[in-house]
């Protein structure tokens, strides 16, 4: 590098740089539990196209995903599997509860259905609807991106105890 030449550079907070990368390349777990999954698939497909927000890469393995869209009814029989999928995802990870069933059991206040997926895993964004429209899910995902942008991942690096308390 010769002296006198000018090279552009950017100054930013590390948090901003990390969250900028995180929020714009969310990799969802390809999991559909009920009819909401159809709307989630529509959201991923050409017309609504979540590729615009950097999250088109639905992964078949929880170990490669960092966004869990719980799309549908969680039965008591399914609950341990949902919990296990969440635990298999590597940190950092986020959860969107899509639809009234995942939020609080929805139209099934019964013995067989878990009354809200937040009873077993932490939920970042709730998207209401039965099912939510693709626009609704996109709004939830943009809300999640805003949440990620406001988070402080460096705190988790500096203070390992803070991990998981996001």
């Amino acid at each position, binding site marked *: 590098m010769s002296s006198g030449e000018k090279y552009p550079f950017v100054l930013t907070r590390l948090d901003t740089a990390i969250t900028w990368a995180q929020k714009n390349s969310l990799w969802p777990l390809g999991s559909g539990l009920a009819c909401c999954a159809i709307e989630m698939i529509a959201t991923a497909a050409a017309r609504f196209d979540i590729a615009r927000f950097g999250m088109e890469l639905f992964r078949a393995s929880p170990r490669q995903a960092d966004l869990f869209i719980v799309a549908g009814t969680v039965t008591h029989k399914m*609950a341990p599997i949902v919990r296990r999928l969440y635990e298999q995802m590597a940190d950092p990870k986020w959860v969107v509860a899509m639809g009234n069933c995942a939020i609080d059991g929805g139209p099934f206040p019964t*013995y*067989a259905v878990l*009354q809200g997926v937040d*009873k*077993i895993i932490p939920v970042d964004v709730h998207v209401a609807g039965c099912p939510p429209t693709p626009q609704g899910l996109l709004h939830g995902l943009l809300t999640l991106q805003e949440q990620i942008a406001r988070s402080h991942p460096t705190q988790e690096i500096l203070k390992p105890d803070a991990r998981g308390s996001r």
Partner: protein
Amino acid sequence: MPEDLASRRELKAVQEAMAARFGPAVIETAFKLGELTFKIAKDELRPALEFLKSRLGLDTLDDIIGLDNSRSVPAGGKRFSVLYQLRRAPGPLRLRLAVDLAEDETVASAVPVFTSADWGEREIYDMLGIRFDGHPGLRRIYLSEDFAGHPLRKDFPLAGDDDGV
């Protein structure tokens, strides 16, 4: 569809054969909506299924239905009913066997006669808690193994006994 038994020659023959073979064990014979129903004594259920299958050619068990009649049965009556929906294939001949069971009674499994009874009986056990003697693996089929209670019983609260995990 003719609404009287006399005009259904095949069903009439079945009814006469059942009456001749089982006599008073056929507690009640009803003909409603074109369908013949025998209410049969609990101990004669498996012989009746075998008889209908091997002698009268009703070779298909379409469905097994469990009922909790606790809201309609008079005091001292039997709480549960199990219905066996039989059919002669191919053809239009259908009939129903019914067994009434008290709360602590069990009934012989139909699996040795009709293999297709397997999952139906497991479903009834799962939902109503009726036990079938001689079933090859009577365990829950829909609900998880550790579920407490039988949810299609009329006294089971819809939301379950717990509302959490």
